[in-house]
């Protein structure tokens, strides 16, 4: 078969599909993340800004609660650097909303700035992915969300120890150079790690 085995293929799990809201101002990155998520059997809605994401989520109060339940978003994955509202600002708005704060948020960034990563994780981001995002990142994320994420949310926020079958990089911890290297050996060395963001 021409296609490499990237997983067991999308089987209909009967109930709703895993719905991801992807937020990125770059049309190229939106196309790629959308494809990564679809291959990983997720339903995807891609928007180009934080404000559009909030509109979609109904945070501005325009959407009725019935509509909101039908559109149920299971995960939000957002770029950090966006004009207008940054991914961090979007994260804060989501975590500050009683309606939306349960939705896990993952931040993507091309810049390996420790202070930025810490700030996002402290604000409640589920994970912080380095761009360009790989298929293995998305698959790991999806597996974590489907398997452990729900458990985690029910029990409240506590550190989750990595499963044996998971990638060695634990989620909700600041990615260490070793952990980053596990997901992609060449990416960790690409740019120097910046400790303090100016």
């Amino acid at each position, binding site marked *: 078969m021409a*296609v490499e085995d990237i997983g067991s293929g999308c089987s209909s799990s009967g109930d709703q599909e895993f719905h991801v809201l992807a937020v990125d101002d770059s049309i*190229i990155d939106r196309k790629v993340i959308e*494809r990564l998520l679809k291959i990983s059997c997720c339903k995807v809605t891609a928007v180009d800004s934080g404000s559009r994401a909030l509109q979609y989520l109904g945070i501005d109060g325009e959407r009725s609660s019935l509509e909101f339940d039908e559109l149920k978003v299971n995960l939000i994955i957002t770029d950090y*650097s966006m004009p207008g509202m940054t991914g961090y600002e979007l994260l804060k708005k989501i975590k500050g909303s009683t309606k939306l704060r349960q939705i896990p948020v993952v931040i993507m960034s*091309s810049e390996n700035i420790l202070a930025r990563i810490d700030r996002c994780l402290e604000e409640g981001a589920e994970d912080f992915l380095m*761009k*360009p995002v790989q298929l293995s990142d998305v698959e790991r994320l999806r597996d974590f969300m489907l398997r452990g994420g729900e458990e985690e949310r029910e029990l409240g926020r506590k550190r989750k120890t990595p499963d044996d079958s998971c990638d060695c990089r634990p989620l909700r911890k600041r990615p260490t150079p070793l952990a980053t290297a596990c997901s992609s050996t060449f990416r960790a060395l690409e740019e120097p790690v910046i400790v303090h963001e100016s």
Partner: protein
Amino acid sequence: MEIVGQLQKQFVDFSTSLYGEGFLDEQYLQLQKLQDESNPDFVCEVVSLFFDDSEKLLNNLATALQQQVVDFKQVDAHVHQFKGSSSSIGAQRVKNMCVAFRNFCEEKNLDGCLRCLQQLNHEYFLVKNKLETLFRLERQIVEAGGTVPVIVA
């Protein structure tokens, strides 16, 4: 050697040289993995978006650097975007040029920025040309009834 075989060899040799000379990196290989029978033109579509976006950015950069008072933050924002998109498709030399460019933006070094823009234009059109050649070879192979060889890292 029959036509398909010749074309396939050309394709493999050309691809190998693109990776070897640093025009493309691992990320381009990652994009190939996202292409399949259900999305047979995925890579070409992404790269076309990149071409459109890049040419807009290059124009914006030229305009921004021609202003009486150059807004280096704005210039940096454009370069940052270009760095992101080139990184997303694996255009390594373009990406590296953007990294150097950002340093000059930070220093508010206009001459440095202008030189970088020139080099960035050069690198971009080079890789554009290479990718168009690659896509052309792929089309020729398929039209001749063959399959495009899969390049692995």
